[in-house]
Each structure stands twice: as structure tokens, then as C-alpha cells.
């Protein structure tokens, strides 16, 4: 149980998931053929799964599907990592080059069956399998059912969203990783607070200072969650990004001895007035370039440095843009040289209305 305790400590707020994962995978009688872990972005699915698997000591092959370009690529990676776990199948050792490539689910299943016939049980983790661009639900259910065919294999699928129709088959056991609440987020982030002052060597860093850092960091995290939790900081990773970004400007007054550490409300107000006023939109739009956050004089100068288009290109583009508001069916009427068979008066009228629409 001591192992589990260290896991609980490392991954707070995931006790229940760790427990059920361990329970399902360490059952002595029969392992499930498949297992589904699901939850939105940044809820600790992959990390927890890997940590638990490491802890309970079952051999497992891990394939990150986001890294794979095609489905065949996933199959190939899954197969080669399985081979790496149990060793190459007997018959093909001599002729490495000729080894066939799994290019469909059936193929993969047959090959794995051969491979794992007499081996110890292994687990195949397919991470982010629903995020792969080519994968279809048939392939997904096929992969999930491979465990039915092969005795020694358990397939763990890590997915973002899980509905009853996902696999088109009997539902394997699943574990839900819900999104963290505010308290949970703050708790997780406070595991690794940043320090207020730059620390040169570890010995100077007393526990008192650590406590102060932790307190301020926690305050800051929860305050920022309150402001931006709805959009820019909607999960742990995003919140961490924003806090990391704002932290130096938050603690600057403390470093410069203007405020004490306990003056958090004042500090935060100051931060809000100085930084967030300009940059809230920037966090919302998530910029690539973050160095020039506040529009200053230098930036105004830079904005004058825009490149001009040639005169005619500029106005032709404007005209094309305006014309794009006309629906395509009217093109012949407004722009074509063809005349309809209708009478000239009617045409003249049309032309007039047409021009009005264009203008």
C-alpha cells in the first residue's frame, strides 16, 4: 500500500482512478480484454496510467497515436513495441527484413496472436487513439476487441470523449477522469511553487521562505482561476501557463521592497491594473509572441512599420472583398457581358438595381 500512497501523493485528486485502475489490472482471475480511460484534456489520464502500470509491474507497450501519421503507422508501432517486449517470434528471427507489416486490424490481430501465443500477459496502451486523424470507429472497435481474441493481451485505450456508441460493441470497463475543479487545480499547481526571489544556492532556501512562496503561489493561482478560469485558464496546463507568465510581474514589487508578502490583495490589484488590463485579450487569443505584451511607444513605432501594398493591388483587393458579398448566382447578372433574351427596358432596369446592390 505504501506504493499506492506515493502515487496518491504524486497525483493528488486521482485516488479513485488509481484505485480502480490497479484493481482492474491486478485481478488474478481474468484480465479484461480491453479498458477505456476517458476524460478531457489535461486530466492526468496518460500520466496516471503510466505511473500505475510502472508501479504494478506488468509489461506494457505504449503507443502515442498523436505521433502517428496513418493508421498503418499505429499498427506498425504497436507491433514493433510488442515485439520489443516479448522478443521476436520464433520463425522469423533469421529473416528480419522480410517480416510482414501489419496493415489492417485483422493483420495486426493475427500477428499479435502468433507473437503472444506463449508469452506472459502484456498490456498495449494506445494513447489519444481518438485524436488520430485517420482512425474510424470500425478500426477503433476492432482494436478494442483484439483482447477478446488474444488471451495474453489487454488493450488500454486512452480517449477524450467516451460515449456508448464509441466501440459499437459490448462495453469494456471504463474509468472516467473528470476535469479538475478549482480547488483541485490549485492543489496540483501548489505542488511545485515558484519562488519569489531568485535563489542562487539551495542552502539559503529555508523552509520559512518555502512556506511563503507556497502561500503566495496558491493565492495567485486561485485568484487567476477566478478571473480566467472560464476561458484562458480552463485546465491545469493552461492555468499553469498563465500563472507562469504573470508570476514575475506579480512578485516584482516584493523583490523591490515595495510591498510585503502578505499584501496579496494589493499586489494582485496592481497586477490587474498594470498587466491584465492590456493583456487579458492576449491570453484569450493565446499569442505566439509574448515578449511585447503592453503596447508602449516602441510598439506604436513598430506598428507604423507596416508594409504597404501597391496602390492598385490595394484597391483591387478592397473591391474584390466588397464584391464577395454578392452571391454567386448574381454574378452573370452584374458582371457578364451576356445579355438575357428579355427586352431592353427590363434589362436597363435590372442594370440599375444591380448597381445599387453593388454600391
Amino acid at each position, binding site marked *: 500500500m505504501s506504493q499506492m500512497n506515493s502515487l496518491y501523493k504524486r497525483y493528488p485528486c486521482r485516488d479513485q482512478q488509481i484505485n480502480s485502475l490497479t484493481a482492474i489490472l491486478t485481478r488474478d482471475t481474468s484480465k479484461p480484454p480491453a479498458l477505456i480511460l476517458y476524460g478531457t484534456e489535461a486530466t492526468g489520464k496518460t500520466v496516471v496510467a503510466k505511473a500505475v502500470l510502472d508501479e504494478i509491474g506488468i509489461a506494457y507497450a505504449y503507443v502515442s497515436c498523436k505521433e502517428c501519421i496513418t493508421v498503418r503507422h499505429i499498427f506498425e508501432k504497436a507491433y514493433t513495441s510488442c515485439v520489443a517486449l516479448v522478443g521476436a517470434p520464433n520463425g522469423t528471427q533469421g529473416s528480419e527484413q522480410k517480416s510482414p507489416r501489419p496493415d489492417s486490424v485483422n493483420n495486426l490481430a493475427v500477428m499479435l496472436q502468433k507473437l503472444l501465443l506463449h508469452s506472459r500477459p502484456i498490456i498495449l496502451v494506445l494513447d489519444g487513439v481518438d485524436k488520430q486523424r485517420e482512425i474510424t470507429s470500425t478500426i477503433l472497435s476492432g482494436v478494442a476487441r483484439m483482447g477478446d481474441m488474444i488471451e495474453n493481451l489487454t488493450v488500454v485505450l486512452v480517449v477524450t470523449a467516451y460515449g456508448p456508441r464509441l466501440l459499437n460493441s459490448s462495453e469494456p470497463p471504463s474509468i472516467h477522469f473528470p476535469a479538475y475543479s478549482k480547488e483541485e487545480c490549485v492543489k496540483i499547481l501548489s505542488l511545485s511553487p515558484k519562488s519569489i526571489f531568485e535563489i542562487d544556492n539551495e542552502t539559503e532556501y529555508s523552509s520559512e521562505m518555502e512556506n511563503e512562496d507556497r502561500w503566495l503561489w496558491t493565492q495567485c493561482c486561485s485568484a487567476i482561476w477566478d478571473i480566467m478560469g472560464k476561458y484562458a485558464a480552463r485546465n491545469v496546463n493552461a492555468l499553469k501557463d498563465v500563472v507562469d507568465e504573470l508570476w514575475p510581474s506579480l512578485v516584482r514589487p516584493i523583490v523591490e521592497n515595495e510591498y510585503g508578502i502578505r499584501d496579496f490583495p494589493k499586489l494582485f490589484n496592481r497586477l490587474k491594473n498594470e498587466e491584465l488590463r492590456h493583456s487579458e485579450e492576449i491570453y484569450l487569443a493565446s499569442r*505566439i509572441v*509574448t515578449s511585447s505584451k503592453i503596447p508602449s511607444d516602441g510598439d506604436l513605432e513598430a506598428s507604423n512599420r507596416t*508594409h504597404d501594398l501597391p496602390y492598385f493591388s490595394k484597391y483591387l483587393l478592397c473591391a474584390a472583398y466588397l464584391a464577395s458579398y454578392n452571391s454567386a448566382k448574381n454574378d452573370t447578372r452584374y458582371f457578364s457581358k451576356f445579355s438575357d433574351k428579355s427586352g431592353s427596358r427590363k434589362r436597363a432596369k435590372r442594370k440599375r438595381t444591380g448597381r445599387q446592390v453593388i454600391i
Partner: protein
Amino acid sequence: MDTDSVLNDDSSSLEHLACYIYTPTSEASSTPRKRKAELTARTSRSKREKVDTKNCDGDGVRKGGFPTLLRNLEDQDAVNARYQSFERLWGDVENRTNKVLAQVNEETLQAVSTFVGNATPELYAGKLPTGLILTGPNIAAHGILFDQIEARIQSVDKNGKVAILTSKDSTNFKNVLKRVIRLITEIESGLDDEDDIIEAKSGRKESRYNYDPEIIQDWCLDRPGAKVVIAVQDTEAFDPAVLVELISILYQYVPKIPFILLLGIATSEEIFYEKLPHSTIRLLRGERFDVQRFEESMEQVFEEAVLSSQSVLKLGPRVADLIFERQKDHTRSVGGFVMSLKYAYMSHFYANALSIILGFVDDESSLTEILSDAHCEAIRNLPSFKNLVESMIPTFPWRARDLLNSATSLKTAVLSAARECKRYSSGLTEAINLFRKLQSIVSPKHASEIPTYELYSRILWGEFTTRPAFRDAILTTKKTSSEKFLLLLTTLAELPSELSSSLAEAAAKVETLQSEKSKKGGLITEFALPESHRTTVKSGRVRLDELKSGMTSQDTEYNKIVTTTVQTLEKYFKDRFKSYTNLFLHEIFFYDLKSPHSQVFAPKPRPSIERALSRPGDYLGCECCSGDLEGIEGVQPYAAILYQLYLESPALIGIYDLWSAFRVVSLGEKADEEADEESEEEKELQAQFYRALGELRFLGFLKYSKKKTDHLVKLAWKGL
């Protein structure tokens, strides 16, 4: 002939073929009757060809195709000298401009290369390091810029390997990856295979799919520290879906492969952000790089290529106006300017026999040698010579007579005129620099409004000193505060000019005056009225009087200095900004022919194509098509015949009608005979008909109608 015999053997089966390749039996000749004409005219034609080749061998190769001018009176040596001086002078200008252009991007290149060298994911919160390069809208320059970046990173700084992607690579994601792998690892085999597999090389690694980024990972293992730079040259045109996939894959591999992304953005950062989903943008973190703006680099290149005293040939105001108007309206590219400058050099040396004078400006003895009587005659025909002689007649009539009669005195006049022209242009450059400086200090706003190259053509027109811009500059100089005036004097004195000593003197005086008066504030002049004093004329006068009475002795002294300095400046500018047309031989030193440029740099493709098709003789120049043939003739090329038939047809054309008309025109009298489907001639004509039809479709004149079978829709009318 094999295919032909095959065709003949089973020509009966041709009817049932959907398509077949027809190989004409005869040699490639565009019309049937021309073939016959060729037979008869073979002798005459070959004669003409002989003459042509003689011409080419004789002179063309040696002097770069320059023709003999002055009604063939020009010496062969002079023609060669003309060609050589073109090569020399333009080569010099080109070298200097290239140097400037190489420096233009230097700053950006340096910044990008440093970024690539330093960037690690740790530095950017574990995200994909990204450089946004704001390249500006001149697409023609982007390729060069990215090549420079590649060369810089790969060869000079050796930071890693660069793969440049353009929008035409963005057809699908797999191809993009394959291209990246090919560019980075330089593996050639296996990338085009159907089965997408790169076989393992000598059993070192297992074989992989040819789009697997792990190939790059293997490549990186052998080269520690090398960055893998993916540069997207035209991000706006790149398929956004592919770009999103590319970014997500690169991001996935960031822990394993040191990927760095460079994105070339022609519009603006904001527009770029709108193209990609936030989730993708969140994967990127990095820096922005600006490329020098067109105006700045243009100014530098202009100063080097035209204003510099090393450039002997200058642009005249008309050509300069034309070139810069085109720049402003259409292209905005420095490369375009250099091309038009080169064209000016080319056409000047090609068509003007007197341009050899330019080549010998520094070598007077050889110039007198190479100028022949024909040259002298040509000089006497110049308008500027006429002006010169006419101005001489009232004062020195004998000199005028000498110029007209004696070649020697004319040559001396040419030499002095060459010196005079050179002096004029160096004085002009100097004065322009001085004026720009003055403007930038006195009224920076005006200075940024008119760039140097526009100022140049305005001055050459000769009336710049009467224009408001000039008078404004002089007036504001009078009114500036004493600090600014002092600054002005010191900076202007630093520039090399004949005024520098007097300006420095004035500056010293003002400085002493200012230090004397410093307790009571700056020096005042009667010109510098504070704004509030100008309520009415009367009160203004009263105030002025008060002001005058309030002026100290230092102020009066200062007032004098300001007045004299401004007067000297004005006189100096008026002297230097005289029109160039007063100079003798200005036709040689200033290239000012508008029409070659307007024809060459503003092409008219549509009228040219229409003319080529309706009057092919104008372009082909062969005997059969020459003459004043208006309208359709059987000897014309097939596409031209078809085009003219097309012009006569209504908006919807039946293909069979077109074919029969075409047949009648092409065959002439023979068309009345019963058509024999199987005959070789008929078959060839049909093939040519389809080919001509295909050509017209390619040019966008026709398309197949959906309304009626076997009908064509007319898409373009002539002369629009």
C-alpha cells in the same frame, strides 16, 4: 514512320477508338500549303538564311548583338567599345546594388539565425519554438529571403538543417512530411514508392514508413546539436488544415527532435492568428522578426545605384517618374527597380551611338581617338548642341563657327561638357543629401512624405525651388528654435559640401551667443513669433515691435546669422537644383526615353495574343504570311485560321460547322472535292483542327457547352 504504318494497317478500327495519338507523316510544318511553298521557295529561303548567319557570325557574337548605328557609319571598334562600356558600367552598378541588397536583410538574417541557434523547447515552456517572419507583401522577394535564411543557418552559422516548404507542397499532409524528410535527410530512395516504405540501410535500423518523422530522429542521432528547421515560406497560401496537422505532429515530436518552425507572414500577425484554431496556436511560442520595409531599402539602393558619383549614367526625370509611379502603383519591389535601371542602361548603350562617351569619361585621350566624324555629326544634331551654339553666337560667334566646322574644337567642347555634367551630378547629389538632412531636422514629417527618389525627379524637372515644399523648408528653417538651428548647422557642416566651412563658422558663433545668453533662455529671432501673438495683423505688429525692443544684443547678432545662413543655403540650393536640360550633352548623361520602359515593363498580353492570332504575319515574318493580308488565308497557322473563324461566329458555335469552314479555308479549291475520310491529308487536317481547338481552349477563348452537344461557347471577344 512505324506508328504511321500501324495506323494505316488497321485504320478501319480507328472509328471505334475513343482516342489515339496521331503522328503526322510529313515534317512538322504548320500549314499544308506552306509545305508546298517551302518546296518552291527553298532556294530563296536558304539564301536569306545564309545572309542571316553571316550577319550573326560577323558581329553579333563579339559585341553581344549590338547593331552598327549612325547609318552603318559607326566604326566596328566603336560598337565594341559601346558594348564593353555597357558591360563595365552596369557591372559596377550591379555589384554595388547587390552589396546594398545583401545588407538589407542582414539584420533579419542575423536575428533569425541567433533565434534558431538558441531556441530550445525549455526556453518556450515546452512548446514548439516558432519564428514569425513578417516578410511584407512583395512575394517575389520571399524566395530570395528564405534562401538567404537557409544559407545562413545551414552554411554560415551551421545551426542545423532547413527544409523550406511552399504552398504548392501543401496538397496533402503525407506529401509535406515526405518532402520535409527528403530535404532534411537527403534520402532519395523509397520516397516515391507506392508502398510508402523506406528499406533499412544495411540492417542498422528497422525499415520505416517513408513519412515517419522518426527517420529524422535517426538523422539527428548522428548530429547532436543540429536543429531541424521547418520554414513555411508563404503561410497565407498554405492549406490551413495541412498546416494544423503539421504543427501538431511537430509538437508531438518536440521532445525527441529539435524542431523549429519558421513562418513567413506576408500580411500581419493578427490575420495569421485568425487562420489557425487556438488549440494549434497554443502549441507555438516564439518570436517575431521584421524585414526591412520597401521604402527604406529602396532609398538605400537608389542612393547607391543612381545618386552615387560612381554611376555615370543618371536617370532623367521622365523615366524616373515612370519607374517610380509603376513601383508605387503595381510592384513595390527593389528587384523590379534594379531591373528597370538595367533596362535603361541596356537601351541607352544599345541604341545611342554617343553613349560611348560615358565609357571614356575618365580617359580623355582615348575618347578623342574613338570619336569619329560620324559621331561628331551626331553630336551636332543634338538639341543641347543647338542650345549651346545659339547661346554662343551673340558673345563668341567665332567659337560657334569652330564648333560647327572643326572636329577638334568639338571634341574639346565634349570633354569639357563631360566634366561639367559630372560636376553637375555630383553637386546635385551633395545638395540632395544636404536638403534631406535639413528637412529631416526642420520638419521630419515632410521628410518622410517625400522619399529621396521622388525628390530627385522633382529636382531634375528644374522647378523645385519654386515649389511649396522647398519654400516651406526654407521658411521653417528661419523659424526654428535656436537649439534646433544649432543642431542643423553642426550636422550640415559635417556633410561634405562647399558650405561646410561657413556653416561650421556660423555654428561656432551661435554656440558662443547661446552660452552668453543661456540664463535668459534661448535666442530669439524676429521670424520666430510665438503662436499666441498672431491674433491680428495689427496686434501682431505691435507685438513684433515689442519683441524687437525686447531683443538683446546677442539676439540681434543671432538674427543676423540666421538671415545670412538661410540666404546662403537658399542660394546654394537654387544653384544646385537647376534643370539638367541647360547642360550640353545632357542627352548622353541623363537617360530620359519614356517609351522603351513603358512598352517593356507594362506588357499587354491580350492585345498581343489577339494580334498574333489575327495577323500572324506580323510576328512570323515568313514570306507566305507576309504582305498586307487582312483576313483568313489558308497558309496561316491553323490556330490563327481557327481564331479568325471563331471571331466571325456567334456565341454558341457548332463544332461541325467550324470544322467544315476550317476545312474549306485550309484546303482551298481542293475542298470542293468529295471528302475522303481515309485519306492521309484529311486525317492530318482533322488532327490539326483538334490541336488548334485545344490551343484556343488553353488560351481561354473557348469551352465546351453543356447546353448543346458538340457545341462550343465563345468566351472572349476581340478588342475589349
